[in-house]
């Protein structure tokens, strides 16, 4: 599987340093499940984090801190989360943790004849959802108030910026105006994260978009 569209250093660093919000973290982690190159980059970034930790000036702790911690060593540990059973259809684990199921078990909500979606979560203005388009589906011309991250999980789509297949991540900011079209052949399934509502240009979508949380 060859991946052509990767998160840039800025996004990978946000994930590696722990400053990314949860939705963005989810889409980066899911991309990494597809992408050895980005896994390697994040491993290097964590080593940088370790090295920077070593170089920080020490902030002394109170005198009893060590004793207080030693006294707690024998406390029972919190119950460990069990390793989940392996996915039966190859759904990446970071995503399964939010779905509670494999992709093949998702209960989709229809919106129109050829599009379906599944909201995952929303926090502040940031939302994560799954989108499924039948082959050839056109989403509709839109631009963005904020960022839109789209990760292809199955199938593929194309727009003015290029072609995207499984594992490819599209990053669209407020300068991008596009109308993605699902490839022919199989359904296109995407994980999408938006930091603000999309700006649709078609009147019906303008009205319907907010109803569906776009």
């Amino acid at each position, binding site marked *: 599987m060859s991946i052509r569209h990767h998160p*840039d*250093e*800025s996004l990978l*660093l*946000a994930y590696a*340093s*722990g*400053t990314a*919000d*949860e939705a963005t*973290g*989810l889409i*980066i*982690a*899911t991309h*990494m*499940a597809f992408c*050895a190159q980005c*896994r*390697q*980059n994040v491993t*290097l*970034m*964590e*080593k*940088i*984090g*370790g*090295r*920077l*930790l*070593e170089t*920080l*000036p*020490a*902030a*002394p*702790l*109170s005198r009893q*801190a*060590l004793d*207080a*911690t*030693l006294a*707690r*060593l024998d406390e029972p*540990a919190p119950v460990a989360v069990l390793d*989940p059973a*392996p*996915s039966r259809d190859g759904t*990446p*684990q*970071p995503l399964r*943790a*939010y779905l509670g199921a494999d992709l093949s078990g998702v209960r989709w909500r229809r919106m129109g004849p050829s599009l379906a979606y599944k909201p995952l979560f929303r*926090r502040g203005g940031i939302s994560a959802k799954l989108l499924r388009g039948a082959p050839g589906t056109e989403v509709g011309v839109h631009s963005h108030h904020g960022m839109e991250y789209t990760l292809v999980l199955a199938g593929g789509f194309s727009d003015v910026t290029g072609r995207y297949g499984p594992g490819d991540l599209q990053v669209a900011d407020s300068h991008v105006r596009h109308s993605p079209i699902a490839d022919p052949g199989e359904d296109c399934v995407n994980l999408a994260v938006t930091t603000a509502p999309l700006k649709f240009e078609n009147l019906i979508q303008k009205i319907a978009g907010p109803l569906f949380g776009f």
Partner: protein
Amino acid sequence: MTRPAEALALDALLRRVAQMRDRAAFAALFDHFAPRIKSYLMRLGTPAAQAEDLAQEVMLSLWRKAHLFDPAKASAATWLFTIARNLRIDAIRREKRPELDPQDFQPEAGPDADDAITLANDEVRLREALKDLPPDQAAVIEQSFFADKPHSQIADELGIPLGTVKSRLRLAMARLKSALGNTP
């Protein structure tokens, strides 16, 4: 090339904690790392008292998870950095951190496969390469870990375009990778 004795000693202490539940080794690790973890959390805006509590939690986590430490994959400092990072997300931001699961992919193999000697050499090269970064690149890397701000805000505060911050990050990462012998 040898790894700095201090770093090797810390890794050895961590292995003693894992294998022998050695409390003296734990105390030595605590003395070294807890003040740095507290410092890290304070740099990210955590008040001193809370940073101290969390630093203790991180060290408690080290005690409980020491058996998971793999010296061929990471140094003690890197491993603790990831624990501190995750606990901060959990305790301060009250969010989860979406994590990778090795079940999802084949482990990387080949001549670059992890082993303790490769890792030790990498750590030394990384240390040197970080020191040699041009100051403007080093600054944006450091801010990425310690500022808890998006790069757009870091750019605003530096009075430079976001594209410039991103190109500094790209150049810095390319330098660090090539120092470690990875293809950029």
